[in-house]
């Protein structure tokens, strides 16, 4: 987006990340067959991306359905019912808080004259880089009898753990998704609609409630959906916070027993819940998804004066402090503490190598796998290609621990040498996070005039040549951004790595989690700071740079 003349248009959106968040392919559109049919090799490549996760999950489902009645007992007891309630409660609380914070922050930054929208926008997005278990680690390390707060003030605060701890960590991890899509949608919103409502005598609040919010509904819904799925799927934060959510119990079942059937049964239950949320969001979205795409005029910004201004600054400041400043400060303080205490503090190079190698390979593979999916989805749009796109998004929505467990069970049985191989781990990373690559690349490809490819074809070049000469060069930026996003997400990934990593293969995520779980906070903090440092590169590309690169 270009800066419009006459002042600083807020630049808080990251188009590539936005592409992912808005990617859940909407329902209710009717497509007609157009153009030539997609070539079979393209379909083959497109369907291949579904295999690494689709086959193991289907196999696990078959196994669970075919299991003896006894296996189902794990599902129908009081403890599981409690588990469902706990996970549901956490998901509800996190999603609500993330949605409120995300919408409020977006509205303040985009629609008021608070100033410095760029800076605030970046501060609201930076928590995306911090894994949920690093939030958990920093809150645990700050509280409790030996925590930083107790050190500084002499007051022994209790540990911030359990439900409140998990809630805070996950809210901070997920509100940026809501913020990002809402801010982007607010900028696209035709200000005339709101002005018309004002002209009819409605108050600011009434306009927001009756006009703005309903128009933002699809964007907010997509962000909230992601927050809910993220929470349901999270393993790192709930396990460090010792909050018995579904994922933590699945892991305990997996780790504590030789028989994997109970863990598989719980996994299938969790998958069903995740798909239920996905389905419910799609159903309620209805036909509201036709918001105006006319960023013609800059909207008038609401004046914030006196106390309102102070409240706005305080609100954004608190979020930025909790989301970025506090965690980093706590981590640094613990590293210093560890050094003072004579602990062996060293950069865990083998974990750095593991994280970087795994993430780079996953990013490259995801970029390659995204191409056929995106070309099918954009250039051969039909119900079938939409189903493919939707399947990729469903794979992204599945809780990682359930995917990992399914792959593990399948690999042990059928894949022999691939079991516990780096190759398999990378393939699973790339497939789980493929939706991020396809979302970003799709946003780019939608900008490319299809006549360019047709012109190249009629100049005598075959489809592969055209892909290489025309399509890829023109969507390169989006593809790369998608790769950066996959890199970032893979860096943070924990449960699948725990289950599927080769013996001796370590990543920063595993190191942080294991050290924090055993209360070696200084060591965990070191690894966490290294992880943030490595993530800074893709974060810069995705969050800070977009404005510089496009204006």
């Amino acid at each position, binding site marked *: 987006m270009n800066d419009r003349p006459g002042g600083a248009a807020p630049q808080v959106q990251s188009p590539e990340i936005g592409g992912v968040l808005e990617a859940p392919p909407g329902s209710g559109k009717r497509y*007609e*067959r*157009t*153009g*030539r*049919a997609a070539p079979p090799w393209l379909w083959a490549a497109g369907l291949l991306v579904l295999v690494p996760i689709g086959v193991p999950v289907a196999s696990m489902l078959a196994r669970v359905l075919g299991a003896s009645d006894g296996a189902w007992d794990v599902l129908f007891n009081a403890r599981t019912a409690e588990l469902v309630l706990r996970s549901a409660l956490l998901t509800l609380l996190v999603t609500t808080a993330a949605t409120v914070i995300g919408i409020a922050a977006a509205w303040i930054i985009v629609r008021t004259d608070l100033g410095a929208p760029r800076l605030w926008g970046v501060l609201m997005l930076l928590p995306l880089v911090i894994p949920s278990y690093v939030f958990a680690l920093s809150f645990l390390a700050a509280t409790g009898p030996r925590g930083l707060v107790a050190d500084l003030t002499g007051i022994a605060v209790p540990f911030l753990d359990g439900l409140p701890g998990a809630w805070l960590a996950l809210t901070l991890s997920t509100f940026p998704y809501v913020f990002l899509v809402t801010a982007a949608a607010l900028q696209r919103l035709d200000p005339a609609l709101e002005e018309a409502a004002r002209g009819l005598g409605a108050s600011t609040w009434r306009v927001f409630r009756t006009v703005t919010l309903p128009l933002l509904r699809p964007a907010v819904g997509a962000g909230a959906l992601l927050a809910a799925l993220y929470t349901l799927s999270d393993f790192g934060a709930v396990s460090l916070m010792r909050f018995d959510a579904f994922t933590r119990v699945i892991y305990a079942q997996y780790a504590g027993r030789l028989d994997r059937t109970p863990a598989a049964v719980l996994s299938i239950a969790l998958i069903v819940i995740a798909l239920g949320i996905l389905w419910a969001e799609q159903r309620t979205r209805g036909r509201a998804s036709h918001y105006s795409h006319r960023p013609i005029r800059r909207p008038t910004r609401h004046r914030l004066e006196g106390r309102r201004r102070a409240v706005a600054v305080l609100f954004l400041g608190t979020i930025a402090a909790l989301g970025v400043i506090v965690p980093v400060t706590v981590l640094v303080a613990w590293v210093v503490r560890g050094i003072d205490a004579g602990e062996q503090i060293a950069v865990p190079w083998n974990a750095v190598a593991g994280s970087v190698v795994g993430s780079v390979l996953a990013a490259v593979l995801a970029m390659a796998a995204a191409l056929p999916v995106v070309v099918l989805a954009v250039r051969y749009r039909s119900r079938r290609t939409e189903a493919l796109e939707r399947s990729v998004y469903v794979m992204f929505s599945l809780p990682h621990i359930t995917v990992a467990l399914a792959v593990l069970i399948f690999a042990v049985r059928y894949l022999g040498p691939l079991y516990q191989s780096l190759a398999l781990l990378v393939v699973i990373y790339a497939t789980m996070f493929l939706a991020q690559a396809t979302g970003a690349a799709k946003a780019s490809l939608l900008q490319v*005039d299809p*006549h*360019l490819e*047709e*012109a*190249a*074809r*009629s*100049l*005598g*070049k*075959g*489809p592969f040549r055209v892909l290489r*000469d*025309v399509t890829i*060069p*023109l969507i390169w930026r989006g593809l790369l951004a998608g790769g950066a996003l996959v890199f970032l997400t893979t860096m943070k990934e924990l449960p699948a790595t725990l289950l599927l990593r080769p013996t001796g293969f370590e990543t920063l995520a595993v190191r942080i989690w294991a050290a924090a779980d055993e209360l070696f906070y200084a060591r965990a903090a070191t690894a966490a700071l290294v992880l943030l440092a490595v993530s800074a590169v893709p974060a810069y590309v995705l969050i800070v740079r977009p404005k510089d690169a496009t204006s």
Partner: protein
Amino acid sequence: MTTAPEPAIHCHSVSRRFGSTVALSEFELVVAPGSILSLLGPSGCGKTTALRVIAGFEDPDSGSVTIGERTVVGPGVSLPPERRRVGMVFQDYALFPHMSVAENVAYGLSSGELGRVYEVLELVGLAGMGDRMPYELSGGEQQRVALARALAPRPTVVLLDEPFSNLDAPQRERMRREVRRILLEAGATAVFVTHDQAEALAVADMVAVMREGRVVQVGAPHIIYARPSDPWVAGFLGDRVLVPGTAGIGQVVTPLGAFPYRGRANGDVQVMIRPEWIHPIPDDDGAATVVDREFYGHDQMVLLELPDGQHVQARIGPRPLLDPGDRVSLGIDEVVVYHGSDLAAPPVVPPAD
């Protein structure tokens, strides 16, 4: 008579639907080699789909297309676009934004044909502009590049989709002449799609008028203009006056007078006259009255009232200046007679008096 040359393009009974919309319905088209044919029709008549089927971007539901001697699509055959030797010029030009002008033009050539790049750039009047990037060019220049790129690999046919619609009016007039010159000089067979009848008549050797997925009339511009096959085509190609008439033996009687007629129709017919075929002559005893006039400078349109109260338009030169109320008698060059549903009946025209 010599034998007719093999057509450069032959579309036979091509049909294509999009869902419930029929884009092409048993579409027939024959294009002679070396000629420029215009596919003319209102928007939504299927003309762009026809072009895309010929180029290979759409597969028809049925029917076949032959380019040169090769069937490119038909039962069991569908050559991909890159094997059809068809040059395409898009409405939005579709120049590769990441390549220079020369790279764009060279894209369809093998690496050894650099000389050809300069040859075609010269042909389109852009010699020396090879290093420019597409965004540095004006609309007209972009169009020349698009044309050069399409012509460079010496395609069997060149297809142009609404080639002038992205240009402003003065540029459009110039590019019309330019494109015609370039196509003639290149000896290319060309089909261009347009909804603008003036453009079609001015640029093409042959015009094929399309409606609702089929070609309703093909002919040289001056012929289809003077002998439209039905009143709709007549109205689409230009201004028309339609009056009721009664056909009898040897003549057709209209409010504008009786005209010799040798058609088969008997009874009620429709009679079409181009406004410029009507010549009002100042005459105090004339049967028609001038009601109004629009003066355009190079000519004028005069609105006349006939004795029975009907209004007809006449297009005349800048002189004489007729004023409302003036009485005139009418000289009429020719008329075209349409009979009932038999719209394709050959019109019969009397000699000018």
